[in-house]
């Protein structure tokens, strides 16, 4: 089974570390969610849903969560074998751009 097919029918329960999501609630109640880029004892850096690079001082946030779980749901039983093959075939054609490396 190809890696793409496996990801569609049997997605891993957790994403790779570089694909983790962070959810930050600021003191004024704003919630920001994005891809975790880095964090240390004092700061957290992410790429938010508006594709803005954001930095937070942990002492200034009310709540901070790092989400490791994989939001993908399985397509097992929802697609026929030919449909799955078509989808994998399509996804293989997507070259995309080189991702940043956190």
């Amino acid at each position, binding site marked *: 089974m190809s890696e793409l097919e496996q990801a569609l029918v049997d997605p891993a329960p957790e994403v790779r570390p*570089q694909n983790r999501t962070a959810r930050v609630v600021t003191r004024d109640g704003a919630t920001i969610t994005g891809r975790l880029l880095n*964090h*240390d*004892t004092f700061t957290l850096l992410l790429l938010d849903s508006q594709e803005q690079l954001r930095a937070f001082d942990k002492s200034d946030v009310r709540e901070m969560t790092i989400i*490791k779980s994989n939001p993908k749901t399985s397509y097992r039983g929802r697609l026929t074998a030919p449909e799955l093959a078509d989808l994998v075939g399509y996804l293989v054609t997507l070259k995309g751009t080189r991702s940043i490396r*956190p």
Partner: protein
Amino acid sequence: MMKRILVIVVLLSSAAVHAQVSYDRLLRSGAEPHNWLTYSGTYSGHRYSTLTQITPQNVRDLELKWVFQARSLEKFEATPLVIDGVMYTVQPPNDIVAIDAATGRIFWVYSHQPSQLARLCCGRVNRGLAILDNTLFMGTIDGHLVAVDAKSGRLIWDVALARPEAGYSLTLAPLVVKDKVIVGPAGGEYGIRGFLAAFDARTGKQVWRFNTVAGPGERGGETWGGDSWKTGGGSIWVTGSYDPDLNLTYWGIGNAGPDRNGDSRPGDNLYTASVVALDADTGQLKWHYQFSPHDEFDQDATQIAVLADLPWQGKPRKLMLWANRNGFFYVLDRGTGQFLSAKPFVRVTWADGFDEHGRPQRVPGQEPTPKGTIVYPGNQGATNWYNPSYSPRTGLLYVPAWVNYASLFIKRPQTYVEGQYFGGGEGRATDAQGLRTATNNLRTEDEGYGAILALDPLTGEKRWEYKMTDFTDAGILTTASDLLFSGGREGDFYALDARTGALLWKFAAGGQVQSGPMTYAIGGRQYVTVNAGNALYAFGLRQ
């Protein structure tokens, strides 16, 4: 009291300029806190200073005074010496640099060009120097011990101890006791046969030698099967401690080889993963204690032996405090080696208790296998070579720790080939980010974290914990004003309240702290230094 100490410091600073560092000064190094005369500050391994100008109240006024940028991209692990206003450190791999400790300007550089044949598991590192009279001593990564004039940077003698192509290297700061310089080689991942050796400080001639892997006919030789002693490991990474009253020098010994496959070396494999107490004049073994018999988890006992005189069960006793890579905190009688207590300071799964002699009781099934076994603590240990600190004021032992992480210990067949890795398997990280240094930290607390732990030495109880999000390879310094300085992989250098663990000050150094901080004074001004990234930073109070 603080003023009085400062006055003494000023007087000593001006009176002792360019004085020779006699053995008597080394013995009484605690009496001249403006200097830092040995790797740990004193022979007792406390890395504790009686300087008190920087306090919990004013530490927020620390500012950067100067930076020394190493002309090297290797890990910068050396602790400097400071003698009467002159700082001596090692720019990796093996350049001795003499620096004006007030300004960071360079007096001279002595460069040793190590052989390209050197085989190193973990970088071209050096942890520092020793001094006696006007001579500096440095071990080199190609297995040499060199003596260099502290005034001119001129080479006095150069002795080749061992063959670098076979994996022998010197990464530790030497220990000077009386007229001898004591060192031992790293190389436990290359199947060396480790040793400790003392050299005449004037001539470089070897005076005694103790094999850390006991051979046939030697005491402990029966703990190795067949010829396995020939490649048994037993490396030396960090500087030993010394008790002048007992005339004993204490050294932690590294892992047995091959690291994770003990099939070829049946027995306890003395003196790997042990502490040995040697007569400083003769090198004769007085006692030993083995923390991890027949080690298969790479549990090098390469930590600093901390010597403290404390009441044990109501009676004064000469103790040795040891937070070990294997996850247990030990208290031993340093006169006899008697095991007094051991308590885990992180999660430990490979052993679950001790017999009356202090031998760990192994947990069945907790051993490396071809498929791998998950074991706590993980491959880098619960702590490692980076130094702890003991404060006689707080009575606490401070330990840089890797908390709550495991490794998958995998065993593989291993054949010895000179100069090639001799690990017998691997200790693979169980979380996706792994144990190695990453530019960006994405780790969560449940995957393990770095911490400073404050332990009560008499009970092993944790008094407080300062958590970091990433692991730490930084040592610890404490002072008589109850400050604690340390850092970590995150690149911050910080000060904590040594009594509570509260964060008081921090500096974003922009590079990992992979050394132990130290402190000194010039002209009544106290400095604190640390290496981070490829630079050495010196801090003092804002004037």
